[in-house]
């Protein structure tokens, strides 16, 4: 909690900016969707009726996709899903690895559980991450699209849970390893040896004596894993494995257009991934927002870490 005291003004600005965008995104369904233009099916340009896609100049501010949905509305709507899915996933990964590490500090855990996690960490690092996701999530996606012609919401919920569970499992071994390395280092420190000689149990040493270090590490790892998860979402989108499933729309006899159901940003990128030459704004604008979000998170992490280091230094 030391970290959260004496927040600098820059941190406040960034956090309020993030909260403001989240608020706008949350207001989309009840309020904004009634005001904003959601779809432009045709428009009159220079006396001629034109059909989508429209460029950002024709339909400001960000144009539309092939079937006329405005990118602006989609970006507002999708932000909360992208952010909260990433946040939830990262939160559960951090909590789980903390719980697992509390088992690893005992001899049994260190001898039997730790090698398993180290093994999986090595195994997952050797296979390119996007391909690993394609290997593990791809079959479920194919099974879902082959089994049901009309994708039911229940199936989508099941699919998103499977996707998140696989993403969760892929991230855990590395987190466990990082926590364990830090804990091993801390247990070798003088103050930890003193605390244990005086009779403190291992779990109490971790929860009480190591609290400042563990908090700092957790904040650092939490932001790192959040940024990593957001990157993994784009990898999924690149291979058309939409978070939460997709809906296929028939444009004409031969062409189809796959749209993300959850409307989160990576899905938005994924559904237009093959149209870079024809409608570049449909990919580059969501990607730009994605990069800004990651940039914001990197900055928030940096300020939090700097403040944490200052607080620990001043408390000494």
């Amino acid at each position, binding site marked *: 909690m030391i970290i959260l005291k004496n927040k600098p003004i820059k941190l406040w600005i960034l956090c309020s900016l993030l909260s403001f965008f989240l608020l706008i995104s949350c207001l989309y369904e009840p309020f904004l969707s009634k005001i904003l233009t959601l779809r432009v099916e045709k428009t009159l340009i220079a006396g001629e009726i034109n059909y989508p896609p429209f460029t950002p100049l024709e339909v400001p501010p960000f144009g539309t996709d092939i079937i006329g949905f405005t990118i602006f509305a989609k970006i507002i709507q999708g932000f909360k899903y992208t952010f909260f899915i990433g946040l939830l996933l990262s939160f559960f990964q951090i909590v789980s690895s903390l719980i697992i590490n509390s088992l690893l500090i005992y001899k049994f855990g260190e001898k039997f559980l730790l090698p398993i996690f180290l093994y999986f960490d090595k*195994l997952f*690092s050797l296979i390119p991450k996007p391909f690993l996701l394609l*290997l593990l999530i791809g079959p479920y996606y194919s099974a879902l699209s082959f089994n049901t012609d009309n994708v039911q919401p229940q199936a989508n919920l099941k699919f998103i849970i499977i996707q998140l569970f696989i993403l969760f499992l892929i991230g855990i071994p590395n987190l466990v390893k990082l926590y364990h390395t830090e804990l091993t280092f801390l247990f070798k420190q003088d103050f930890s040896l003193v605390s244990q000689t005086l009779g403190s149990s291992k779990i109490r040493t971790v929860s009480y004596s190591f609290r400042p270090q563990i908090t700092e590490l957790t904040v650092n790892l939490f932001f790192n894993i959040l*940024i990593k998860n957001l*990157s993994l979402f*784009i990898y999924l989108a690149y291979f058309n494995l939409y978070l939460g499933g997709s809906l296929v729309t028939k444009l004409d006899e031969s062409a189809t257009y796959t749209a993300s159901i959850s409307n989160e940003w990576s899905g938005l990128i994924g559904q237009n991934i093959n149209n*870079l030459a024809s409608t570049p704004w449909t990919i580059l604008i969501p990607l730009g927002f994605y*990069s800004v979000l990651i*940039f914001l998170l*990197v900055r928030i992490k940096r300020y939090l870490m700097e403040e944490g280091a200052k607080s620990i230094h001043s408390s000494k």
Partner: protein
Amino acid sequence: MIKQFISLITILIGIVLLVCLSYLLPLSIEDLGLLITSFKNTIAQIFTYHYLSELWVIYHQTNGAYTLYLISASLAITLFSLLLYSYYFPKFKNRTIVKITRFLEDIEGLPVVGVVFFIHWFSIVIYKETSIYLLRTVGTPNEPALFFPLFILSVFPIVFLIKYMTPYIKMIYQSNYFIFAKSLGYPKPKLFFSYVIPNLLTFLETIMKFIYLEMITVMLFIEIQFNTGGLLTGLRNTQIMPPNINSPQLMVISYLLLLLIPYFLMSILFEIVNIFNSNKQ
């Protein structure tokens, strides 16, 4: 040595199991017997002479040399950039170093796919506006693009390496040995080659392996986006067009093995260097 050999074998078994599992999903969750049968069959197919010769054929057919040449060139560029940075490091002020590290941190977080797409789009725009065909951005497996892939492939490792190595470089330059040698009047280039580089190499071991694996990931997007062909395109294609000749699992394992052979060779090389160094001491 025996421990490392066992670790290598278990990792290879793990890769085979993971690939077999992925081809049986979601069925294998309920039926473990299916997974065991598939695993046994794949292992039996791997240990044949025919399979080894097939690996070589796959390497040639998918233009594997392009992938490995590009990665090697990028590794060389990355190492050279690190050398330059560490040589000129003492000339930078402390504040400049902090600024550089922060800037690199910001870049590092950016999604690779975004950078690949942006560069691709940028070259299209330049071509549309000026009709100048600056550099090849869409190649063919016979005439693959070189400059942009190499540029994208090198940027992220350079950023990562410089960010990661800065504290170590600082530590080396501030060490008592270095300060003492400098005060005795040893020339800077001599100290750089005889003290700084050997000390940096000890930290590079794990990081080079990590960078190689990261490069493979970036290469996947580069190969697909720039249509260059290569081992990773082949790997991705196994998921789109299942091969007719071999079992699909075997093809995936072949590509993964071909990609990981340089990694294992690198590990062995570092191991030999370590053994040599410990004997010397």
